[in-house]
């Protein structure tokens, strides 16, 4: 199935959770997900719900973090 991740189209396996997606994009070395926030279809998915939230076809996901800024 297809989701939009940070504006890019991505194919993912059905049943993928938010937690699995975060692990997938955090790199193979398993960088921690602290300081990352997830928005799904304009609604924030709290960290406590990452593992239980299953993505659906057509979801628009934003993954954001802190960067340098004034």
């Amino acid at each position, binding site marked *: 199935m297809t989701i939009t*991740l*940070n*504006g*890019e189209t991505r194919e993912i396996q059905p049943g993928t959770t938010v937690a699995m997606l975060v692990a997938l*994009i*955090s*790199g193979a070395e398993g*960088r921690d997900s*602290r*300081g*990352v*926030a*997830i*928005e799904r279809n*304009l609604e*924030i998915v*709290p*960290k406590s719900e990452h593992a239980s939230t299953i993505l659906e076809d057509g979801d628009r996901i*934003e*993954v*954001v*973090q*802190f*960067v*340098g*800024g*004034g």
Partner: protein
Amino acid sequence: MNDPLIIAGKSYASRLIVGTGKYASYQQNADAARAAGAEIVTVALRRVNLSNPDEERLTDFVKPDEFTYLPNTAGCFTADEAVRTLRLAREAGGWNLVKLEVLADQKTLYPNMPETLKAAEALIADGFEVMVYCSDDPVYAKMLEEAGCCAIMPLGSLIGSGLGIMNPVNIRLIVEQSRVPVIVDAGVGTASDAAIAMELGCDGVLMNTAIAAAKDPILMASAMKHAVIAGREAYLAGRMPKKMYADPSSPLAGLI
């Protein structure tokens, strides 16, 4: 001298807040923030770079356990964008203290005040502590304070311009009327600008480009630290009155 800056009930020894943008590297950024003696740093929220997971991360250099992160809404041009951004920032970081800025146009980055007020009201209703970037209009500054903002942050001049404090009269009017900290945000170019802001009675100064774009950012960060302290102490000391004519410093009695 024990003279803390208190924002939203929390006490800070430093009155200088620095940004984390435009530096050559996050390492230089961290070194500059330390040289500035800053306890609070502004940070932005952006999409994770999916194509390069090994990219350096701000949090590995300017560490959230060393500095208080102040998430901003730089790049937001509507109240809705700003509120959305800061809700994500709260989720990412877990803290409520934020810097709100809603901009009007790319050329001036001047604050859009109706949208800023609208966003401030929504954020405060949602439990945020809002430090607000605003124009130097005392009327709007008062409205933001009455809406519940915990710090009023008027521009000295345009963001990144380095033109200094262009309207000291308005900054002073805002200082006199405000019961929450007033922090000049934007426009400082060099140390004397920071000192002027503090001599006007401002409670602090927020800057980014003045340090990041200096030839030697670490040395400029140190200069800014001293300028803010000097300006604050001069304000508290109370300057001498200005006079039209000379007044000799040496006694006239006993002249030969």
